């Protein structure tokens, strides 16, 4: 059976036993496995809250240091959002061997209107934080394209050993990007790529990459929120 059982009740004696176990096991370290024989029990509200609080306390969302992750999202026709997490241990290891190591964030675009699958670099910049996020302005006039972001690492001294660490999911930018601005061909853009790259720092928005905020759990749940649910119904900013 994999469904949810709700038809059971936990005796008080059992609750006390669990309480003792939780107090012993859960403070101040993470819980370890323990098995109760008669577990198909319904738990009281108080017990549920206790478990919920314990889980929140010990399992608050984090991103492990060894994660290599980069994700790309389209905000609107003129902006994309990238967040990345570079493996801390891998970076430290590399810096030990090659102190001049540089981390690079790169965004490329593939022209979906061309059969040649031409690709240009829309944005590239060294990044100072191995874990951060950034909003990037998309240059005007990009044809219907699929964007992809990647993290690269290389030595600034030799500019060799360039290695792509991780690539993001692809994202297609809205067509209005093409309609709103002067339409440029992909090859035009390609020829302008070098100068575009020189000014890529100016495309950063609002400034340099910002370290990603830590997860910020709020109140302990005892707070109630008096406002009626407002999903924006009837509000002009919704539409």
């Amino acid at each position: 059976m994999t469904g949810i059982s709700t038809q059971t009740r936990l005796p008080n004696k059992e609750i006390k036993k669990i309480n003792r176990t939780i107090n012993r096991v859960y403070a101040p370290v993470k819980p370890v496995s323990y098995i109760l024989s008669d577990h198909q029990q319904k738990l009281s509200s108080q017990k549920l809250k206790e478990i919920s609080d314990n889980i929140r306390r010990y399992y608050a969302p984090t991103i492990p240091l060894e994660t290599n992750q980069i994700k790309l999202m389209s905000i609107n026709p003129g902006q994309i959002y990238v967040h990345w997490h570079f493996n801390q241990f891998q970076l430290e290891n590399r810096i030990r061997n090659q102190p001049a190591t540089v981390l690079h964030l790169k965004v490329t675009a593939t022209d979906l209107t061309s059969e040649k699958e031409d690709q240009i670099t829309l944005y590239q910049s060294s990044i100072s934080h191995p874990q951060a996020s950034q909003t990037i302005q998309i240059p005007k006039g990009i044809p219907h394209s699929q964007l992809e972001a990647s993290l690269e690492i290389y030595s600034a001294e030799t500019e060799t050993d360039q290695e792509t660490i991780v690539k993001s999911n692809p994202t297609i930018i809205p067509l209005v990007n093409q309609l709103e601005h002067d339409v440029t061909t992909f090859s035009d853009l390609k020829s302008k790529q070098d100068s575009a790259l020189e000014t890529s720092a100016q495309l950063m928005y609002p400034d340099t990459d910002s370290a990603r905020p830590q997860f910020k759990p709020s109140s302990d749940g005892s707070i109630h929120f008096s406002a009626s649910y407002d999903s924006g119904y009837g509000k002009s900013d919704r539409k």
Partner: protein
Amino acid sequence: MNNKSAILSIVLHAHLPYVRHPEYEHFHEESWLFEAISESYIPLIDVLERLQTSRFKLSLSLSPTLIAMLKDELLQQRYRIYLNQRISLAEKEIWRNRNNKSLQKLSRLYYRFFQHTAQRFEHYQGNLINAFKQLQQNNVLELLTSSATHSYLPLINVNDTAVYNQIKIGLDYFESVFNFRPKGYWLPECGYFQGLENLLAHEGIEYFYTDAHALREASCTPKHDIYAAIKCENGVNVFARDPQLCELIWGGEGYPAHPVYREFHHDIGFELDRDYLNGYILEDQSRVFTGIKYHQISESDPKQHYEPRQAMRQVQHDVNDFIHQLEQKTEQIKQTMDDQAIITLAFDAELFGHWWFEGPQWLEQLILQTENHTAFEINSNQHYLNKNPALQTGTPAPSSWGKAGYSDYWLNQENDWIYPFLHKAGDEMEKLCKDLTGITVTDLQHRATNQAMRSLLLAQASDWPFMMKSGKNSQYAEKRISDHLARFNYLHEGIRQNKLDENYLLALELMDNIFPELDFKQLKQP
């Protein structure tokens, strides 16, 4: 029946985030559901029942989270308590206003309103799904649904399975409740990205809704603007809402803003002495909406008392105006279009009744007065497709119905910090499912993996980033994301390290009891 020039499709999208807190004896946010039941869902059901002999069809999208809450026995029981409190408060108000005829009349109105609501609720054995089933069977409703927890799909489309799981689990759940799979689909917040239609087609969806610019900026130039559907290359059809007509109802200066209509924000819960309200506001004496509101929107200071008859006269006036606007629009469309046109109006269902108290009456009068109209009929998008199968082919543009038309409302400086955590959990869930596929898992691991999926789905709801951006209930939204991701982490780690605590798992199953038949082994990405 002859083809009329246009089909007017009215689509109501009913959705609330999953607000069910068995870990508390009382939890205020559950009243979001209770207010919507009293003020929107039951009044709309009443209207549709009264109109069952009329020729029309509305489309109603019920989000899976709302379906689950309407079916939930704990919430049904708590709603009964909530409703009894309202009846008792209205009675108390009748006595308090004994020397003020105008107010006492309104107190009596609320007393009757809550009594009627209780009676209607019990008529359906406390389960409004029964009412929606009945209305669908009687052919006045075309039922649709949405993604599992109303996730804004363009922003979780960063790995291979997150969007698919939201779509499939939502549709499977709808089917388990209503015994059929809908053909139409409501994209949460009309959020569309290119390629989404392939996942929808895989799950049997034949059409979905977008905002106007999705069609106007589509890969083809739409011949008939937004007044015909376009067909994606895979055969799925796309409709767009008419922003101009919707604005008449939903805009800041729309019909609901008329001074004689009932004012939403002036509620006795914020106006009378706390001592008097004891038992009807929160235990910590925080003020809350009681649903008893005595004033008009009127600009006068102090605001005038609400006059139901005056409001009903205004409803009639607004219906006439709307029909006039529709006639003009239909005439305008006819000049450039020989085929039958489709005019799609889409709203949150809770606008009718909850935010706009007179909204259900407006809808009722609109349906009654257009029943025999020569130029248009109120019917569903499915009906339009049956009669107009030959459509232009194209791909809509990425878009939403949020402010500015894209993803700005769900991704900005107020809420962007949630995405690295959501995406990481999405990747981990995907990998976990892959790792567990084809191998024997214990019953406990199986249950825990299903529960981890529930936790992830609940964390992905579009409501949380929306609240963070709007600044309303943002603390609650942060707590919900934090809780669901922590629960996911606990389960993920427990499964990976084979250190699951069965009582903890049971507790999580009891708290997040949505999608009881969810089975991660059945989720096979196309």
